[in-house]
């Protein structure tokens, strides 16, 4: 044994050898590497499909929420300045997304449309004659459940409440509550489904790695008998696990981009014009999504390899 070899130099040399053995092992056990990487890939496919589904559900829900508007009708004697002041006041609330002024003719038409099934209201309008409805404000909120709060704030304001004739909030309450409950259920369901599939995927990855290490158990023993340290034996397997995670993540990122680009126009048709912006979402958050997936998969692979090898290293 040459005694002139310094320890740092030897460690560096061993490090490069471990990398070389890892690459050798990856290519010479091609089918095992292919199967392991494929299982990693399927795990990521499950996770990314669930992310895409959640993004689509969020997009659809946001689109539905966007379509919910509340009209607040003001009396005909409300001045233009008062209306503008009320609009400014509403826009100052963080819950409010937009406030549009509706001219009185349009407001009357909307009011009639709103009460078309209520003959008493329609008869009263006829009796009064002319247009007793002033201008109206059409309000949209960031969240459907915030409408109650917005209307309450407006009604309890001593400055504006005397001028408010009516709002269609009470008529929409049930629809808004139903929508809020539905969106919440969809979100919780999405997370539960994602958690369940992630758990199943982790189990599959754990088992695949255990089998891969089991296949190599005799080689591990031989390496130990020839004088290799635990680190020298473990190293290539840990690097292989990292390499499989990296390849699976890169392939997944490519497949995701290609698949979503191809599918997005069809999804828009399916969601009747709602732009779910899946590609934009994945492009904007790609580094975080795929970075986190790579790190998680690598940690899972490395830790499982580490523990799966322990029993075979006791030689």
């Amino acid at each position, binding site marked *: 044994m040459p005694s002139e*070899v310094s320890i740092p130099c030897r460690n560096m040399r061993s490090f490069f050898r471990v990398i070389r053995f890892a690459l050798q092992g990856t290519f*010479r056990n091609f089918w095992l590497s292919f199967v392991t990487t494929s299982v990693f890939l399927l795990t990521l496919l499950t996770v990314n499909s669930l992310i895409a589904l959640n993004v689509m559900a969020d997009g659809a829900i946001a689109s539905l929420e966007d379509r919910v508007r509340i009209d607040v009708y003001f009396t005909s004697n409300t001045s233009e300045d008062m209306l503008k002041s009320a609009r400014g006041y509403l826009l100052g609330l963080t819950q409010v997304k937009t406030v549009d002024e509706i001219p009185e003719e349009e407001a009357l038409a909307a009011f009639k449309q709103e009460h078309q099934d209520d003959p008493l209201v329609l008869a009263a309008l006829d009796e009064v004659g002319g247009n007793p409805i002033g201008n109206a404000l059409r309000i949209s909120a960031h969240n459907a459940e915030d409408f109650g709060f917005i209307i309450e704030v407006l009604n309890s304001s001593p400055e504006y409440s005397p001028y408010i004739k009516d709002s269609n909030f009470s008529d929409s309450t049930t629809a808004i509550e139903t929508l809020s409950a539905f969106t919440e259920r969809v979100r919780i369901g999405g997370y539960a489904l994602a958690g369940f599939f992630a758990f199943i995927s982790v189990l599959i990855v754990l088992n695949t790695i255990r089998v891969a290490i089991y296949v190599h158990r005799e080689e591990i023993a031989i390496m130990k008998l020839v004088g290799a340290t635990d680190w020298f034996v473990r190293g290539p397997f840990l690097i292989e696990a990292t390499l499989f995670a990296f390849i699976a993540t890169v392939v997944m990122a490519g497949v995701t981009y290609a698949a979503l680009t191809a599918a997005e126009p069809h999804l828009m048709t399916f969601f009747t014009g709602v732009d779910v912006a899946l590609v934009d979402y994945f492009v904007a958050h790609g580094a975080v999504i795929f970075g986190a997936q790579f790190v998680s998969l690598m940690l899972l692979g490395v830790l499982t390899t580490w523990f799966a090898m322990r029993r075979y290293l006791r030689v």
Partner: protein
Amino acid sequence: MITFKNVTKLYKPDTHALSGVSFDIKPGEFVSITGQSGSGKSTIAKLIFAEERPSSGHIHIGDWDISKISMADIPVLRRQIGVVFQDFKLLPKKTAYENVAFALEVAGVPTRRIREVVPQVLKIVGLGEKAHRYPRQLSGGEQQRVSIARALVHRPKIIVADEPTGNLDAINAREIMELLKRINDFGTTVVLVTHDRDIVNALRRRVITIRDGRVAGDAERGKYSLS
């Protein structure tokens, strides 16, 4: 060189593989350890390269008491002993060259030195032309030669051969024994574990006979003495 002092090996719950075994092997000796299957002879080989540890007693390799060797020191010990196994124990996804080189690579030997030494050793065992073949492309005898080359390559002072001819035909077995004798002629201590009567008798070297986990005989120019 190798000293066993009252070594006992107990496998739980109550199997005594070895009971109070003592012997001393001097540097440069060629010693055959013989015994029937289950007599405990392979346990002696495993104790020498620390695949097993004694339940009691002491084992010395040179000045080193390996009876309670730490896990960290086991690789260091194994790099100083060459081991030849009955089932060759070659890495299936490495070529003959790579299998032999591996024994040097684990010890951090420079690549330049490995490129010099490995072809020389493969030539010594007669496999200079088949260095880049995988184990599956070699015959049993050739695989055992690779195994011997791997055991030799770091120039160990001791070679332990555990039933090296057990999986070979008579011609290959004789060639392997000739190789081990030549290695011994260069001064390497050879410990041969075997139950092959013909091989032991042909060697006419020291024979330690193990029966029921005890030393039943130790003769300088011994013969196979079990029926």
